[in-house]
């Protein structure tokens, strides 16, 4: 409770910084007026430019950061639970690289330049194709093998990674396209708008609600499939649904923000080390941790650094060493996995 309240406070504080600070100077009072006017609680005069900057620029960017961080961390928690592998992350069955290939293809073939939603749709389409492919390969006679899922994921990661590299290689000739692709692959929240929120909000809400429905089963699955079966858990249904929801969250997050590394790996571990392995608490609290991580990484990139550092790069730069510290400090606690 203390941790979740702390994280919620951190996220709200992040909202204050995200909405009040930027290249355009806007007073806190004006930000409040904009927000209140939008929900019909303020009838006074609101500056049109400030209104647009706060409502159409800073707020959607903040919400995208929140939803992306939440999705990646929640997806990472599920993957680590299902595969009983502390190194599992949202990309373990190839969803991330599938989404990345979709997005890079949309950029290379010029679709992304024509519409804001073309790139996210391509990313989501490719992540779903990946998911279906993984399941079709790993499922025989109604039984889905976890080991085959993992191995298929590794193979698809390699194939999609190679295809993405091929497209990058072709795009180096197209200087501008190449730069856009490389920037996108680094994870970027620049100029995110309500259209992006409209894509990632439903995927996050739908998948989180679905996950919460099966989260008790996930706890039992972590003990072992035999025990779970004895306790009456419908293993294929629970596991496949959780994988589907995790993939939807990952695909949605990558679709609007690019590849943001380490959040799905780091946040579950941090929270698990503090509150233990109960996924009923772990999924939402790790989600909040992931959201806070991405929000503050984006704030740092946008307000402090202001050069070409991207959110995805920063999360990896910060996440890597922090993860090492966690491993050393909580070695014993990870052994239950």
């Amino acid at each position, binding site marked *: 409770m203390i941790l979740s309240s702390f994280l919620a406070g951190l996220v709200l504080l992040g909202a204050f910084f995200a909405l009040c600070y*930027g*290249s*355009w100077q806007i007073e806190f009072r004006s930000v409040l007026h904009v927000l209140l006017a939008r929900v019909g609680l303020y009838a006074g005069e609101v500056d*049109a*430019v400030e209104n*647009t*900057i706060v409502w*159409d*620029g*800073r707020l959607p960017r903040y919400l995208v950061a929140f939803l992306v961080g939440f999705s990646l961390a929640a997806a990472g928690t599920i993957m680590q639970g299902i595969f009983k592998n502390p190194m599992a992350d949202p990309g373990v069955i190839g969803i991330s690289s599938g989404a990345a290939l979709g997005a890079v293809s*949309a950029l290379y073939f*010029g*679709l992304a*330049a*024509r*519409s*804001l*939603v*073309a790139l996210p*749709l*391509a990313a*989501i*389409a*490719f992540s*779903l*194709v990946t*998911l*279906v492919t993984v*399941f*079709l390969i790993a*499922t025989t006679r*109604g039984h889905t093998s976890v080991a085959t899922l993992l191995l298929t994921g590794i193979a698809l990661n390699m194939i999609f990674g190679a295809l993405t590299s091929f497209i990058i290689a072709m795009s180096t*000739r*197209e*200087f*501008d396209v190449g*730069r*856009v692709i490389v*920037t996108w692959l680094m994870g970027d929240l*620049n*100029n995110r*708008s309500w259209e992006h929120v409209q894509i990632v909000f439903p995927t996050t809400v739908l998948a989180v609600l679905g996950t919460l429905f099966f989260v008790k089963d996930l706890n039992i699955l972590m003990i072992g499939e035999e025990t779970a079966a004895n306790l009456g858990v419908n293993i294929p249904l629970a596991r*496949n649904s959780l994988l589907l929801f995790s993939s939807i969250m990952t695909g949605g997050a990558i679709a609007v923000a690019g590849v943001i590394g380490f959040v799905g790996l780091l946040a579950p571990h941090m929270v698990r080390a503090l509150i233990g392995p109960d996924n009923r608490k772990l999924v939402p609290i790790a989600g909040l941790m992931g959201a806070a991580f991405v929000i503050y990484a984006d704030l740092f990139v*946008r307000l402090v650094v202001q*050069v*070409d550092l991207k959110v995805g790069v920063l999360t990896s730069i910060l996440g890597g060493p922090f993860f090492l510290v966690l491993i050393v400090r909580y070695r014993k606690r990870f052994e239950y996995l």
Partner: protein
Amino acid sequence: MRMKWMLWIPVFLGSALCCLSIVQAEEQVCAKTPLDRDRLKAELSLVRGESKAQPGWPRSVRYVDRQYDFRTDTFAEEEKTFEVKKKPIRIIAHAVGVTEILWAICPRERIVAFNDLAADPKFSFIPDEVRRRGPIFRTPETELVLGYQPDLVFTVFYSSVEFKEKLSQAKVRFFDLGYFGTMESIQYQTLLIGRLIGEEGNAEALVRLIDEKIREIRERLPQTGKSPRVLYYDENGYVPGRTSNFTSICEIVGARNVGEEQGIKSWIQIDHETLLKWDPDIIVVPEESHLKNLLMTNRILSHARAVREGKVYSMPGIYLRVDSQYMILSANELAGIVYAEMGKTSP
């Protein structure tokens, strides 16, 4: 197999993507330019002139090697000497800009092969001419370059070390050209190339022609007393600064590059909020990016003066990547765009 229904999801999303890609073509702005485009290009593509002083062969060419370090935003200058034993008659350029300069000042039979980018209309102003003339080699095809037995190869700072090493091993003379980012530096390099290949008369004539055309463009521009503030914004939100060729193009037409004005050195990515804060008079976007429609419908940018007044123009990317005498063509285009609304330019 229970998951078969999911196959329809990507199919549905794919169809949605296809529908999205069928968008109306952007309205192309073909502004009236101060100088006639075709005539200007023809003039800049073939220049001949006499030089007063023409030293014989072998010759020592003294020059200032000027290299830009984007990490520190500084120029390193060093005086060097290059020995040329005899007049080069089998010349190859490893970059588009150098090829374009050679095309104008060097007898064409002495250019024995062309880099493939010089045959690409997205990068070169002479793609058809290059394709007709040939042969063409791809950038990594070092063996092919050696096979043409050049006696002088022009390389640039981004030519790979391996390529230069191969040339050295094959005892092929190569000359590494320096900074090309401004009109002045292009003129300096043109004169240098002229001396290296024994065509200083043509090189001097090209430099004079460039000055003359700059003067002509400026004379035909309306004297408004103020410099329009122009911002170049690409599909990823990148803006060029002081050392980019866009600054030079703006200077020629009496405009100000907003990126330079804001203290940007080479390139930097900015968000829409910053663009609104800088509030340029005119925004130029690369034509291939289809960015114009996106900017014109962006809610934040709807408050920007350029968007409000409909002064967002697309320009083929080639004009913004140029690093040869054809920068005059870019300036001519930009002049047409910048002063389009005044309707005072005449060909």
